[in-house]
């Protein structure tokens, strides 16, 4: 374990948890109580029946914080497996839905150009607005959003990051839970 500088780094942690009432509360409560800073949290079904998978992005000053957060997560009884993906080769994605002002066809055309350039999608067209669906890494979403600012963003909905390891490795098998 090394102690890095004081700049914040984003770490991706995934947890396989029992699908029971209150689990999200337990996890969120632990992070709050111990002062860990969660940038995003996504929950959904996993490949195993009765188990859900959570993806956390933790803002941490150093490796020690991530280590402690991971260990405290493992202590929660309903948490079955925890994997720190920070050092792994992963695919990470986020989804954003953005409602943009598009009052005339000229502006609409400009927006469509940007959308196509970034391989995003227009999913709703109204008389003076468009809804764009963007999937990708945070940086890609951030770039499109900054480009859209000029047109006038009315609303943004972003999911948290979800991540998976590349290749045959499975999060179920890495980093077995202890304690």
């Amino acid at each position: 374990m090394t102690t890095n500088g004081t700049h914040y780094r984003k770490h991706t942690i995934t947890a396989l948890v029992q699908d029971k009432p209150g689990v999200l509360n337990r996890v969120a409560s632990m992070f709050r109580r111990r002062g860990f800073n969660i940038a995003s949290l996504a929950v959904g079904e996993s490949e195993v029946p009765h188990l859900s998978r959570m993806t956390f992005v933790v803002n941490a000053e150093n490796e020690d914080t991530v280590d402690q957060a991971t260990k405290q997560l493992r202590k929660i009884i309903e948490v079955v497996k925890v994997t720190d993906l920070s050092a792994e080769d992963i695919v990470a994605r986020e989804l954003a839905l953005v409602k943009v002002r598009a009052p005339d066809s000229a502006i609409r055309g400009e927006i469509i150009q940007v959308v196509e350039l970034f391989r995003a999608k227009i999913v709703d067209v109204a008389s003076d607005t468009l809804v764009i669906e963007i999937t990708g890494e945070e940086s890609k979403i951030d770039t499109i959003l900054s480009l859209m600012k000029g047109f006038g963003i009315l609303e943004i909905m972003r999911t948290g990051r979800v991540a998976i390891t590349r290749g045959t490795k499975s999060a179920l098998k890495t980093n077995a839970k202890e304690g």
Partner: protein
Amino acid sequence: MKLTGAQVVCESLIREDVDVIFGLLGGAILPLYQTLPQYPQLKHILVRHEQAAAHAADGYARVTDKVGVCIATSGPGATNLVTGLANAQMDSVPMVAITGQVPRKAIGKDAFQETDVQGVTLPVTKHNYLVMDPNELARTIKEAFHIAKTGRPGPVLVDIPKDVLQEIVDYDPENVAIDLPGYKPHLTGDPTQIRAAAKLISEAKRPIILAGHGVIISRAYAELRELAEKAQIPVITTLLGISSFPEDHVLSVGMPGMHGMAYANIAIDRSDLLIAIGMRFDDRVTGRISDFAPRAKVIHIDIDPAEIDKNVKATVPLVGDVKNVLVQLNRLVTNKTHLDWVREIEQTKKEHPSHLIPENNKLLPQYVVRQIWEATKGNSIIVTGVGQHQMWAAQHFFYTKPGSFVTSGGLGTMGFEVPAAMGAKVGRPHDTVWSICGDGGFQMTLQELATIREHNIDVKFAIFNNGFHGMVRQWQEFFYKKDYVETRFFNPDFVKLAEAYDMKGFRVTERAKVRDTIEKAMAHKGPVLVDFVVESEENVYPMIPAGTSVKEMLEAPMPGRELVDHKDAST
């Protein structure tokens, strides 16, 4: 067989070897209480306040090999348990709390005496449950006990709606399986790390063992002693580690930390290897982390992986049950002596005699502790709350019997001393139990004198009556220029109070009467209260002010060593 939910709870408790329950009833939990007479094996002790039920279960669990059990009703009954649960959580005490909840249909409707008990107790329990399906009762109780007593122990709460207790279910005791895929305590040490630890021990010139509560929880007294004697390593015991190693042993160095023995703190400072066993480097032990044991490598043995590297970096982490790990380690540790090091610590003891009590005519609280030790020949369970009385009880009674010191360590709960002593005496009825109380803490839970008298629970109470919240007053003296804001208070006549509860009461106002009164209290069969009117502004020494290090240690003033002004402290 067909049983009500309440019967399933009782059957399950009996299967978990429960024989005593501390509790207080109310509407939501009533179906369980009305069922209790069918199970005379379950002895119920009715407390006067639910906090006491939790502390009594805590004290009971600490002195037995059992899980402490307490029961409360919904709403205020359950919230009154919270301090007791937090206390048990901080000190890793195995407990199961059962609470009644409003009927399922009423949950979430702000019903009478409804509280989200699962939500409220979430951060102060190892785990908790709300049982919405009566068919889950048997499994849930089995899991609760399993979680409470295995791994790093802790309190588990089971919240049960009233109608779940009333519903009739099929109960098959032979067919109750726990389902905890995410709970696998790590019990044995990693062999590579064991070898690394043994190597560090063989290379160390000035090793020190820091024995904590984990040694007592794991019942690893013999293994600890074997390690210490084999490699001739001096042993320091943390507040909760007290009694894990006999204090009359030549290698015993006493307690470390804020009010630890000066020589223990100096030894840590000079050590080149700390062998931390079942302890968690609490800030009261370490002081300023950057100045703690600056020359030492660290072997950290703990069953909870999250304790490794939390406060102090481990050179060699060893996750596992203390007893198992010590057995593994002892196989590899070779016979060794550290004569120079042991002699150096002996010399430090002479230069810094922290355990000495001033010889004068004053009625000093330290003196009372020492007299209880002499009168009982060390054969007593000592129970304390938090504060000056606790530190004196830790410093001036020499513990030689495993598990003979019961104290509120991590949470520092005033008032723990009364109900915890009651629980300890119920758990070990043949042992002498002295509850050493602060006059402040005692008044937080003194209502339990009624419970104690009702069941004739033979606890001897020694109240250190100084008319102050003494430890806070000491901080005001040291750090706030003796500005005694709200620390002085009025006390009732404790002897009359004892009499009101139909108990024997004595008052001692002079040193010469201390021993005689202790003897009288012990000769009396049944609970006794002794009001020791002690020096009101006596301080606990040594003291390492919060957030500082051994360099800033304050020792008792004596000729040639005057007290100097101190800087303000942090926490």
